[in-house]
């Protein structure tokens, strides 16, 4: 490894270092930008916190269904609700606005590697996801005395990072297809029904049978089942089927985004 580094021409290794620095700078300032945009940061952190407080902690105080603590079960699903919101609004909202104002075009004309832009958006959304899930976990531990082991927390964090990707792709598709002014509305129209039908607000078993079938095509369902699985709850379907569900959804979204992007490019 070190020998290859030595044999690289100085200019080349400089450019690798510069590229790496560009990726880091883009990600850092995208996160800072989102944090400073109160309309985003307050809503995206506030909603899951308030929802979890009401529905997970206050309404079901100390309740257990069988051996399942409701507060802990709800932590899993509201964590998914939170990270999905961060991904959809962070990427969908940001991309739509920068696309419509011509900022993205200026970035594309610059020597910035295009991937740095997307990676920065994805990482910032994931970082928000981590913050939201950590806050919810702290609430669960301090208010409802839910016991969460370190491995459980670590798995939840890992799922937040990976789980951002399918929703980032969905956000990208919305940004590319929907006129800028309509983006926040359309994101909500997708986000809220998808959360309900995916079993994020109430356990999937309590939904009508036909909705449970419909949930199979929803990434929210698959991701929440994976999170609940890492808490040791019995889930509908095997982990493999949920991973396949998420990967399939991601691929479909990437395909749609590619087609939409090509169509826009040809007419711009």
């Amino acid at each position, binding site marked *: 490894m070190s020998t290859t580094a030595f044999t690289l021409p100085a200019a080349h290794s*400089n450019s690798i270092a510069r590229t790496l620095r560009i990726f880091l700078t883009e990600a850092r*300032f995208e996160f800072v930008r989102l944090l400073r945009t109160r309309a985003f940061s307050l809503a995206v952190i506030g909603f899951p916190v308030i929802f979890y407080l009401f529905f997970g902690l206050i309404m079901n105080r100390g309740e257990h269904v069988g051996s399942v603590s409701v507060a802990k079960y709800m932590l899993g699903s509201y964590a998914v609700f939170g990270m999905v919101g961060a991904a959809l609004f962070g990427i969908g909202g940001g991309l739509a606005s920068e696309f419509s*104002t011509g*900022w993205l075009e200026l970035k594309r*004309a610059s020597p910035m590697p295009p991937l740095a832009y997307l990676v920065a958006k994805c990482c910032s959304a994931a970082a928000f996801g981590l913050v939201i899930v950590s806050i919810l976990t702290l609430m669960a531990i301090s208010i409802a005395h839910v016991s969460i082991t370190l491995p459980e927390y670590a798995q939840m964090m890992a799922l937040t990072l990976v789980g951002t990707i399918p929703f980032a792709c969905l956000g990208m598709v919305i940004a590319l297809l929907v006129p800028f002014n309509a983006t926040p509305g359309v994101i909500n129209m997708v986000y809220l029904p998808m959360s309900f039908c995916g079993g994020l607000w109430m356990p999937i078993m309590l939904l009508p049978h036909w909705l449970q079938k419909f949930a199979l095509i929803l990434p929210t369902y698959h991701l929440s089942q994976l999170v609940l699985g890492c808490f040791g709850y019995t889930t509908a379907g095997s982990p493999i089927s949920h991973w396949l569900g998420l990967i399939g959804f991601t691929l479909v979204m990437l395909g749609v985004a590619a087609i939409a992007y090509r*169509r826009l490019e*040809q007419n711009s």
Partner: protein
Amino acid sequence: MSAVLDHIQAITFTASSAAVASLSHITKRYANGVLALDDLSLTLHRGEIVALLGPNGAGKSTAVKLLMGLSAPTSGTVRIFDADPRHATTRLRTGVMLQVGKAPEMLRVREHINIFRGYYPAPVPYADLVRAAGLEGIESRMFGQLSGGQKQRALFALALAGDPDLVFLDEPTVGLDIEARRGMWAEIRSLAARGKTVLLTTHYLEEADALAHRIVVINKGRVICEGTAAEVKSLGAATAGASTSRTLKIIRCVTDLPKATLLAIPGVTTTELKVGVTVISSTEPERTLRELLALDQNLHSLEVQSPALEDAFLALTSN
């Protein structure tokens, strides 16, 4: 003095005519069938400021997008520094200022500038950029808090961040007050003086007149005329109907003479009555004036002007 300098610069271009950027025989047809560029060729040389003029929808921004490698031509070739404009190495040598509705508003001017400086291996020192773009004192403001003119200046700084050899400026001085506009003009001139090439699109004909070594007028996707400001003006005058166009002058006065009499005066090509003022174009202004003053003893409010670039532009792009 400046005319002499311009002349000297004009000579150096033709001598060292290495093409910095070129569009050759470009046709661009969008997927919706709109023909934006129609066999357009354009070459930019080292150290020159070229203004691209044309009415809305003439194909200016399409041409600029092709040069920036943001879009591919239907046919023809685009070369920048003898390479593909889409290559990352080409982009390291170009800087762009586009008409951006909104840059991310919650980042400070300083942060925006440093993000862009980070894209280049040898960026312009931060303090120099801030001075060149006139951003002293507003570096800590969020982009969203800037006035229209300040935003333009911040975007100008981003275009110059990498010390590029070729700069595209799309309507750079929109929203600037007169002082700021002159300041930006001075910066643009100093870029050219350092051997950089500047391609400017503008709606302010005055700006093209003041800055550009060469003006390219395009309409309906074609180059309809190309030359120095003086050449474009005289071409426009020729289109407007003057034969020996170099000496064309516009004479304004208040006179009672009928149109037929005016047209009979030697040198007069056109005459028009605009809110009580008669506007006469003449290719032999001295002769015309002598005759005119002899014919109408009561003539008053006399003005004699050279045709403006605007007149030439309108003459060239009408029909």
